[in-house]
């Protein structure tokens, strides 16, 4: 018989009459929400990059998860080879990894995507190819092992019912700060204005003297940098591994489809919904059920609202 944590929790909370007290319902929900929030924050960072790239360039970047993986791997190299204390080494990684990944992404754009004239089908095939190239390159130069990056600080919060990693809460704060910076960049700077203009109408933007090639390279680089930043945040919790790009890619696509391709607001809302529901459902029922529901949600959105919750009608 499958073990039902919900029933257990209800019993623990005195709702079903005691038997086997697990954690009672309140703390149980709190832990689920905490886990969900951490997931939502990291997911938002990764998915916003994917969404930006699609919104501005109309490119579905299948290699996005590998840019995330590269961020984590570079973070490992930086913290391993720079003779700095953990906190400084990690901070250095938070600056170096997104910059390097941005440079790689810009190269991918100018050397490959641009030559394909951003043809939607061709770019999907090309990014699938890039996915394998990046993954195998990581396997060759970094190796098949999962390697840990030491967290910048060790701080554990002891709640009355359970302990929680203080670093995970920091991840949420840092992700929010980065997202805020992206939002300010998009709405308050000239570069952001140019990007939005290109998103609305590429030809008109070009007619107004906007260098669309540069905007595209910049957008692709920014998308990569956001994925890398998410990876640097997550790598002290998980470890850097050459196959780690798969899950974030899948979840980012789910988020972006639900939120509406190209809509940053929609991406954020969807990340929150998916992250929290994943946290809560996987804790009270099972992680598999959480994935099933997320996928079902994607199907429903595609059927009833193909442009996504916040997407503009194509």
């Amino acid at each position, binding site marked *: 018989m499958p*073990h039902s*944590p919900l029933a*257990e*929790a209800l019993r*623990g909370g005195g709702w079903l009459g005691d038997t*086997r*007290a*697990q*954690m009672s319902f309140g703390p*149980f929900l709190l*832990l*689920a929400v905490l*886990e969900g929030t951490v*997931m939502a924050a990291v997911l938002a960072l990764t998915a916003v990059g994917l969404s930006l790239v699609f919104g501005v360039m109309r490119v579905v970047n299948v290699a996005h998860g590998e840019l995330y993986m590269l961020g984590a791997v570079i973070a490992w190299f930086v913290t391993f080879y720079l003779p700095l204390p953990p906190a400084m080494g990690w901070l250095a990684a938070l600056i170096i990894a997104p910059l390097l990944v941005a440079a790689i992404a810009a190269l991918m754009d100018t050397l490959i995507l641009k030559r394909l004239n951003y043809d939607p089908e061709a770019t999907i095939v090309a990014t699938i190819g890039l996915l394998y190239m990046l993954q195998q390159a990581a*396997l060759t130069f970094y*190796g*098949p*092992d*999962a390697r*840990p990056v*030491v*967290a910048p600080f*060790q701080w*554990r919060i*002891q709640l009355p019912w*359970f*302990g*929680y*990693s203080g670093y995970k809460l920091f991840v949420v704060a840092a992700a929010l700060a980065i997202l805020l910076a992206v939002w300010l960049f998009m709405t308050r700077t000239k570069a952001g204005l140019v990007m939005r203009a290109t998103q609305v109408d590429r030809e008109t933007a070009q007619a107004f003297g906007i260098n669309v090639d540069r905007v595209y390279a910049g957008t692709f680089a920014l998308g990569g940098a956001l994925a890398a930043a998410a990876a640097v945040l997550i790598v002290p*919790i*998980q*470890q850097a*591994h050459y*196959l*780690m790009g798969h*899950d974030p890619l899948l979840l980012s696509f789910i988020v972006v489809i639900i939120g509406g391709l190209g809509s940053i607001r929609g991406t954020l809302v969807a990340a929150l919904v998916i992250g929290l529901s994943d*946290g809560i459902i*996987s*804790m009270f029922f099972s*992680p*598999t059920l959480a994935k099933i529901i997320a996928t079902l949600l994607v199907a429903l959105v595609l059927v009833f609202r193909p442009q996504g919750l916040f997407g503009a009608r194509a």
Partner: protein
Amino acid sequence: MTQKLIGMAPSRRAVLKGAGAGLLTAGFAAPVWSQAAPIKLGFQLHRTGIGAAYGRWYERTAQAALKVVNDAGGINGRPVEIVFEDDGTDPKRGAEVVEKLTSQHNCDLIFGPLFSHVVIGSAPRAGELKVPYLVCSEGFHVASGMLNRWTMQPGITDVRAQVSSMAPWVLANLGKKVTMVYPDYAFGHDHRDFFSAAVEAGGGEVIAKVAVPPTETSFTRYLPQIPNDTEVLYHVMVGPAVLTFVKELGEFYGLGAKPQIFGFIDSLEAVDIASPGLEFLEGTHFWEGHCRNQQADASEHEVAYRAAVGVDANGASVSDAKDVSTYAHMFSVWETLHVIKAGMEAAGYQGPADRQKFVEAVEAMTEMPESLAHVQGDKVFNGKTHQVFGHQFISKVEGGKLVKVHTTSIEDSIYPDAVDYMTQSF
């Protein structure tokens, strides 16, 4: 996929040079071909994929064992070489690797795979090709009878034997109400089924079973399923995320009140026990197939083995203290190669035509006393079930080191035969 030829294997350049030299000398004297053709062993290696940490050390152990065997004159007077082939810890590729090692490299036999889903996926192909397949896998799948006569496990005790021999100690010393956390695939199911059975037989109770998908990267969400009245938390985890698993367990419990923790060292293989966040493991217990930290009573053979493989007294590489070995498992590669040598010599093995004779020779084995060939300790082989039985160790973490506190007897681990492979046809 890569292959590496070692031992007596010539590179292409060496072959060309040799051929050239041979041509030159042919005019003066007949070339002398005194060197016998080498015995070629195929090694199915988890070099990449989720088993990569094990693969790295299994390869090193195999190299070290190969050197010892060749230095002592090889097998039947013939030099030995090993062809390593990566299976990506993937069952489908595993079957292809078995095929490639047999048909393309013409290996005499195959050994070395560890992960149970890969073994279960590859062994049928070995049976079809009629090539001896010696696994180092721990799973109960060999002795359960689900595989075939060509598949044997002479180098490491299986999970059923491991857990049933240790359950009495756990119940007597740690507690009676057990919660199990295990990976949700064949290997974890062996733990679930046989440890639960042993606990119930011993008067204890498994009050919750928490299955975690083996590809999971985040574990905190599973931990609230551990009931509050758990007396013993039994954990076993595999894959690249094991460090995350133990860390999150530590965050969850911290240094406050927690159940007794009994883990399989698998949760910590290739992981430095001094990693930040693992302080809570102090005072907890682990199963070890072979003690990672060199114990005060280590035998001379074990010390020699440790040095040959290049492992220091803390279980890390002698060249890199951060490169922690999979010490509790990798002895199985060393011992399996020595069983291969003994089996081939007993069978008078000449070539692939004698593969059946080799299997029969291994099936005839029984006692395997502790020696340089069996560095982990005495063992008894059961030819009917193709499974070896040995001692298990329970260690306690004291001052960041694993200190052995209990050794099980071989008798404790023996269970009724579930199969008689010797009655099956080849």
